[in-house]
């Protein structure tokens, strides 16, 4: 689930005083906006944008295939996850564009390294100190280069010479549910801690303090970002971090919850940005995808290519799916297990954002993705 602590504006002070939020923006000149929603943890593109038309899909996905097929059918090959109701509506209105079998240049399966490559677009993990969004800021007119991270620390994608602000709302004293789930696994073999932890979580759940992951947070985040990007002094570029995508166990329910959060965030942004929605592009992307086949715990493990999504009021090529589909049959997989990448993340971003900002694509690529030719 999206980290609720980062979402809720009002809240108990408590130890929230550890870090006082800082907001500082300069005056705006123009109205184009860009929002990057990063899915940390490797989101399963094969569930988000399910290739239900691929003959190998049903067999590979087993129990998870039925749920995938229950969503909005976008064309003969792809079905959108049922939790993405707003996403489907935007697609019909040509305000959404999906890309599949997409990946950064990273071909291993470590979250940390994969996220670093997605965010810096370097030739290897930690090769670059600056992020591609920071390089993009250098290309934008002053009024459009005010960027904001909805986080306490600036994420790698926004780091670099251009100054970026960050904002972390007061936090309620609860942990995000993704961490709580990890802790349960961490304590599984500890005779003292495992029962303590299960009791703690049960009690908290009854008290309603633990985010049940039902997507309520998505609307709040969307509204928060919209408010931070509103008015002449608002930010024009923003980045939001979401977690909960690393669905090794019982994927169906978990993924449904986090996707619902994303869908509600998009819906809230569309509503609250108002007229600015028509000058906004939202990118949703993850560090890599997940295995084609379901694992032994009704989840999926770290894979390679995944799906990415673009939303916005005036997308250059809205209502389309960009995919050079590699297929899911045995011989078509990457290292015999993963969806094979057929499109680079850098290419998708270059095409979409150079059009959005009216920058000549080759110039855009040279500055934003100098390591990608």
């Amino acid at each position, binding site marked *: 689930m999206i980290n609720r602590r980062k979402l809720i504006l009002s809240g108990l002070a408590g130890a929230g005083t550890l870090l006082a939020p800082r907001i500082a923006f300069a005056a705006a000149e123009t109205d184009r906006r860009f929002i990057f929603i990063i899915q*940390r943890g490797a989101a399963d593109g094969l569930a988000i944008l399910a290739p239900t038309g691929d003959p190998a899909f049903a067999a590979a996905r087993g129990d998870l295939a039925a749920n995938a097929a229950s969503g909005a059918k976008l064309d003969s090959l792809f079905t959108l996850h049922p939790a993405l109701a707003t996403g489907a509506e935007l697609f019909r209105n040509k305000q959404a564009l999906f890309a599949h079998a997409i990946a950064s240049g990273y071909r291993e399966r470590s*979250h*940390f390294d994969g996220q670093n490559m997605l965010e810096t677009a370097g030739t290897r993990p930690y090769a670059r100190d600056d992020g591609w969004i920071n390089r993009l800021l250098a290309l934008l007119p002053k009024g459009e280069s005010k960027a904001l991270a909805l986080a*306490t620390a600036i994420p790698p994608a926004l780091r670099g010479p251009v100054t970026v602000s960050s904002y972390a709302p007061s936090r309620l004293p609860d942990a995000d549910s*993704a961490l709580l789930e990890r802790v349960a696994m961490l304590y599984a073999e500890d005779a003292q*801690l495992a029962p303590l*932890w299960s009791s703690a979580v049960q009690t908290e759940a009854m008290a309603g303090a633990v985010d049940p992951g039902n997507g309520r947070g998505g609307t709040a985040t969307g509204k928060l970002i919209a408010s931070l990007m509103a008015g002449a002094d608002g930010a024009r570029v923003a980045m939001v971090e979401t977690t909960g995508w690393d669905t090794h166990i019982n994927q169906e329910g978990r993924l449904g919850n986090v996707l619902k959060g994303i869908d509600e965030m998009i819906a809230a942004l569309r509503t609250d940005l108002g007229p600015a929605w028509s000058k906004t592009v939202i990118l949703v992307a993850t560090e890599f995808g997940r295995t084609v086949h379901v694992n032994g715990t009704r989840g999926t493990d770290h894979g390679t290519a995944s799906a990415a999504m673009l939303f916005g009021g005036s997308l250059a090529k809205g209502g389309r799916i960009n995919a050079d589909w590699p297929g899911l049959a045995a011989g078509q997989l990457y290292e015999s297990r993963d969806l094979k990448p057929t499109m680079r993340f850098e290419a998708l971003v270059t095409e979409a954002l150079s059009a959005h900002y009216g920058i000549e694509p080759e110039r855009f690529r040279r500055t934003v993705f100098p390591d990608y030719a």
Partner: protein
Amino acid sequence: MRNDEAIALNRFGLGATPGSALGANPHKALLNQFDSFDPRPPLIAAQPARAELVSALSEVREEKQQRKAAAQTDMAADAEKTPLPARRAVRKDYVSAVHARLQTALSSPTSFAERLVHFWANHFAVSIEKIAIFGLAGNFEFEAIRPHIFGRFANLLHASTYHPAMLLYLDQAQSVGPNSKIAQRVGARGKRDIGLNENLAREILELHTLGDRSAYSQTDVTEFARAMTGLTVGGLGRARFQRLTGNSKPGEAVFVEAMHEPGKRTIVGQTYAQGGEKALGAILSDLSTNRATARHIATKLARHFVADLPPATLVAKLEASFLKTGGDLPSLYRTLIEAPESWAPQQAKFKNPWEWTVSALRALGVTEMPGREQAAVALFNQMGQPVWKPGSPKGYGDVAADWAGPAGLLRRVETAGRFARLAANRVDARNLAPDILGDALTKTTAEHIARAESPEQGLALMLVAPEFLRR
């Protein structure tokens, strides 16, 4: 990091900091702290002086009386709203002292010595549950404990017994001998509301020296209480005592002969004929080297450092050292450091909230607590172990059962998430975990950290890993 280094830093010290390896000889590194420990680091030296804190307490009392008086007039409703600046000032003193304690713990290069300070401050516990010592609790640790942790046990006992915070906390300040001069005078006027208070005498025997269910009886408690009469706080007792302590410095312990119960005392088999403060000194000195005290301190020290049920062999070694040296603390610590039992690879101690919080911040390389001074107080309140506020003079419990509960565990996970955000993108938990935990880091935990879905989550998992919750 080698495991003996990790044990020296995490079990003996307050927690490893990034890149804090001790080198070839961790035993020696611990022993060196006996000399390099700074009992009065700048932040602690900068705290208000004892006299200032005590006079602030007097102001709080006056303020309270004034409000009480106002409440009895027609202005009752307004009296409730009267601001209490003196009380606020005292609270500020507490906040400042807690901040100084945490800051010192986070930045100290001699964290074994700092752990000893916390151990002894909890052994001779005072609690701000008693509002009268709100502003003084920090001063108690800074002046009665810190300077004496490398002295003799007798020095600690004396300093603690003679500190105003202890005298006020355990009601010694108002204990009066029934046959003392002042009691006779007051009795002659028909007033009966003064007399003996056994509180501090009992706790010295039960908690500070001999230990409960040991070598003393109720008769010993009463006799000791009689022997202690006269020991009070200058300038802060009830008005009628204040006259008697007139020549003493306000806030300092003073022995008022007129309050003292005259006569010969017999305590734990020893007879003290001389009476007065001399007798009290002799009694404290004898208690400090009693066989039961040696056993009590040896057990508590071994329990704190090694295991809830410490190995009997270790307790015996510590007890023998204590007896042989008459309670020389550096010798005692040396015995602890040299005992192989202290270096058992198994982590048998579950950190209390203070230890866990301090070690977590140290592991992240946080040497300065961000935010306002108040943040430190709020943090430990939230963690369930407010600083200097145990529920009884016994101090905070020192076994896992006292701290390993569901709610406490959840609190740590929440806090770990928050701390991880302080350091996220700056620290890689995959490298940090072996650096901090040494061989205690299990393969399972290392894998969970490596599989975390973000650097931030990896850090949080490291901080709540079983091997980080224990030492």
